[in-house]
Each structure stands twice: as C-alpha cells, then as structure tokens.
C-alpha cells in the first residue's frame, strides 16, 4: 500500500515540480524586488516579506523532496568502509550537533567488511535520521551511532541480526539512537508515509523518512524505527552486496 502511494507520488512529481518551480521563481524575485526597491519602511511589511520568502523556500523544499521520490537517477555503486561513511556523515552534521548541545557516542565495530552502496544516497538517509534525532532533542541529549555486522539471512529466518560469534555476516547495521521523547504509538505506524509530519509546517516536509525508506529499499535493505525505554532507535540494515548490482570499484570520494 505504502509503496503504491510512493510510486504514484513519484510519477507525478517531475511534472508537478516543473509547474510549481516557475511560479515560485516569480514570487522569489518579486519579494526580493519589494524588499530592495519597494521603499518599504513599515517593519510589519518587511516582516511579512521575510515570512513570504521563507514560505516560498519551504514550498521549494517540498518540491525538491518530491523530486527525490521520483528521481530514478543512476546509482553510483562503490565499495565503502561503513564506518567511514558514517563518520563522513557526522562530519557534515557537526555544526548542527554542536549547536544543539548533543553528546555524540560512537560505537563502531572495527574492521567491518566493505559495503557496496551509493555513498551519497546512504549519507542522505543518515542525514535524515540523525537530523530527526537532533530535532526531537531541542534542549540537548545523546545520540548514539552504532555499526555492526549483520546476518540478514539469519534475521529472515528469525535468528536476529547481531552478527555474533559464528554468525555469517552478509550485511551491515547502522543504528542511531536518541534520548528524546520517543515516537508516539499513533504516529509510529505512519512515519514512512509521504507528507506525514509531526514537526509542524515550519520544520518538516513529511518526506524525509519516506525518501529514506525508499533509498534503503533500493539498496535491498530495510529501515526500522522503534521506541526505547527512553528515546527512539532507527536501524538501517544493508546487504554487503545488493542483489543484481555489480561491484563498482573502490570508494574514491566523499560521496557528496
């Protein structure tokens, strides 16, 4: 049901994006013109123009999210060191993490096998998940980022994914835990729906998790969310070698 919803959304997205971005451009230029040349001195009007600017940027971010849903851009499959991929993402988010006084705990399993993935896409997923964790802890908290080998085949047989002694590691788990308020039960069932958001119109487009889940699935993986006694946990499970994907060579860049 949900994947059908997303596919239908995706087909519409490119056309909608084109039709919406043109009027948005007229508005952006018009607002900037009024602010620069409109001889506006009334603070209330200037404030209104600032709000209008933000509203247009927000509409644009919704459209960009829609493009993400629809985009069948070619994936760049490369071998990545999973821990490096996570670490690079954290580097991108350092400013946000510091600004919100978040304590970051890293629990990386060492010497993980290489992961064949589109590094940019996986970073995009991690940015969404870590960004959500930051958002639910506006007054600070702890984010724990954990990596470990996973036995995906075993998990499909109901044996858990923790690549313990003797387990066959055929995947990687990237786990992000926060110490926020957790996900309300009535919300948990809907978090992956496109346009569903609890962040309010100012902060969320309701596309982050929908896009993230789609990207993880395109890697043959799964994205799970669950509540903890104190906080929430997101678990990204990725196969080391996605089915039908040829190994594209060593990782070469920052994946950006």
């Amino acid at each position: 049901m949900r994947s059908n919803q997303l596919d239908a959304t995706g087909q519409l997205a490119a056309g909608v994006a084109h039709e919406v971005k043109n009027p948005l451009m007229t508005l952006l230029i018009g607002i900037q013109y009024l602010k620069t040349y409109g001889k506006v001195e009334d603070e209330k009007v200037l404030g209104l123009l600032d709000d209008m600017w933000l509203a247009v940027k927000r509409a644009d971010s919704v459209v960009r999210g829609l493009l993400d849903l629809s985009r069948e851009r070619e994936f760049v499959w490369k071998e990545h060191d999973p821990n490096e991929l996570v670490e690079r993402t954290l580097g991108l988010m350092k400013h946000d993490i510091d600004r919100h006084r978040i304590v970051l705990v890293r629990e990386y399993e060492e010497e993980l096998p290489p992961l064949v993935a589109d590094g940019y896409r996986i970073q995009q997923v991690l940015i969404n998940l870590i960004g959500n964790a930051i958002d639910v802890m506006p007054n600070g908290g702890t984010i724990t980022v954990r990596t470990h080998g996973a036995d995906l085949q075993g998990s499909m047989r109901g044996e858990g994914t923790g690549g313990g002694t003797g387990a066959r590691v055929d995947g990687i788990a990237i786990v992000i835990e926060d110490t926020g308020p957790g996900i309300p039960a009535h919300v948990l069932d809907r978090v992956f729906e496109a346009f569903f958001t609890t962040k309010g119109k100012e902060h969320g487009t309701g596309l982050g998790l929908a896009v993230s889940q789609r990207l993880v699935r395109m890697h043959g993986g799964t994205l799970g969310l669950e509540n903890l006694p104190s906080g929430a946990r997101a678990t990204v499970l990725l196969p080391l070698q996605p089915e039908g994907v040829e190994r594209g060579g060593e990782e070469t860049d920052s994946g950006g």
Partner: protein
Amino acid sequence: MAEKKRILVVDDEDTITRAVQLYLEAEGRYEVRTVNDPGRALQAAREFQPDLAILDIVMPRVDGGELAARMAAQPDLSDVPVIFLTALVKEAELGGQGKTIGGYPFLAKPVEPTDLLALIESTLGATGG
C-alpha cells in the same frame, strides 16, 4: 556612466520575464528585453544584439537548448554568452558553481535574485562584456 549591458530573457512564463526585467532594470546596469514566444526569440536576439541571453530550457516548440544552438549558428550572435534556467534539476545536483549544460552555465529554478545577478556578472566578466 558606463553603457548598460543588454540582456535578453526568454521564458514562456510571462510572470517570470516581467519579474526578472523589473529586478534587473532596477539594478540600473542592465537594459532588458523579454520574449515569451521562443519562436520569436531568434529574431528578437538579432534585433536586440544582447550582451547576454538568459534562456529557460523547457519551452514549447523551441526549447532553450535549441535556441542557444540557433544563436550560436548566427555570425552576429555566436559570441553571446548564455545562462540557462531550468525547473528540472535541484540546486544540489548542480554541485556548486561551474556546472554547465552543453557548455553553458545554468541555475535551478526558483532562482534567488542575488544568485542570478552574481552569475550574470561573472559571465559578463568572463567574456569581457
């Protein structure tokens, strides 16, 4: 006072061309001509002899890419630098400055006026215009 630079803006959305014209002319350094029917853009360019052309990519009948190629084939327009505007890509996909379509720089709609001004200035500067 230096002579104003002539800028041709071609976009089938008349609200966009009006807004761009208003904004650029308010800057005081540019004379702007706008065209909404891309089929008439080549003739307009020949009459106007712009220093720079801003072309929308997705337009009915004649798209921006084809228009740029037609301009490049005209001896009196072949040196006119072009900036493309497109609603079909995201800013993030541009990967920062310097990305091009067919060798021309481009901006993703909705374009922020300051970004458009900066690209106009750098493009005119690069061509000695």
